């Protein structure tokens, strides 16, 4: 497939557990973004990568959230000590570059439920 791929599509876990969410961007896209969408809201920015480095992590809510993109392609969003308030849909997007105003192309998201 040519689109952004996110796995798993659904994740249910208990409060306090650690979770990893994976994003596989469109091939050749150097910019990758993570957003969080709560029920009835628009996506909210978390972090963006240009290549391997996190160029802007100003949207991460606290130090329980961390993301990596070690080879400049696949990215993993990691959440430690999950809380019920972390329940949301986590969306990944990619674009050719970040500097030009290219459209961001979104995956279908991971629906995270913290019990």
């Amino acid at each position, binding site marked *: 497939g040519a689109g*952004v791929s*996110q796995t798993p599509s659904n994740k249910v876990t208990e409060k306090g557990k650690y979770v990893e969410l994976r994003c596989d961007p469109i091939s050749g896209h150097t*910019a990758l*973004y993570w957003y969080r969408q709560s029920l*009835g*809201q*628009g*996506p*909210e*920015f978390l972090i*963006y990568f240009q290549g391997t480095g996190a*160029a*802007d992590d*100003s*949207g991460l809510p606290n130090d329980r959230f961390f993301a990596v993109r070690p080879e400049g392609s696949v990215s993993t969003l990691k959440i430690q000590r999950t809380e019920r308030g972390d329940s949301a849909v986590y*969306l990944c*997007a990619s674009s050719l570059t*970040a*500097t030009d*105003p290219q*459209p*961001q*192309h*979104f*995956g*279908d*998201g991971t629906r995270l439920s913290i019990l």
Partner: protein
Amino acid sequence: AQSVAQPEDQVNVAEGNPLTVKCTYSVSGNPYLFWYVQYPNRGLQFLLKYITGDNLVKGSYGFEAEFNKSQTSFHLKKPSALVSDSALYFCAVRDDGAGSYQLTFGKGTKLSVIP
């Protein structure tokens, strides 16, 4: 700071009638504006963007949007609505003077096209 407002939570329109979904924005620099559509349990699909130039932008599936700088608006329009247009629509903005490449989204407008 950049922000977007979508003043209508829901818009209802009869099939075949023209539709408008409203969006206003606030930025300190020049705006890059985007419209996305979201179907249930799916990610966001790009419809169209305004970067510079002609104020009337044409996009996918017959949608268009009009950029109005004096009113800081970017309303989405379609001359003749289809039942299949029923979905959630998001307006997003990026401030070219902000030094960051994140998008800020509105809360979304649910469009219902009635047969």
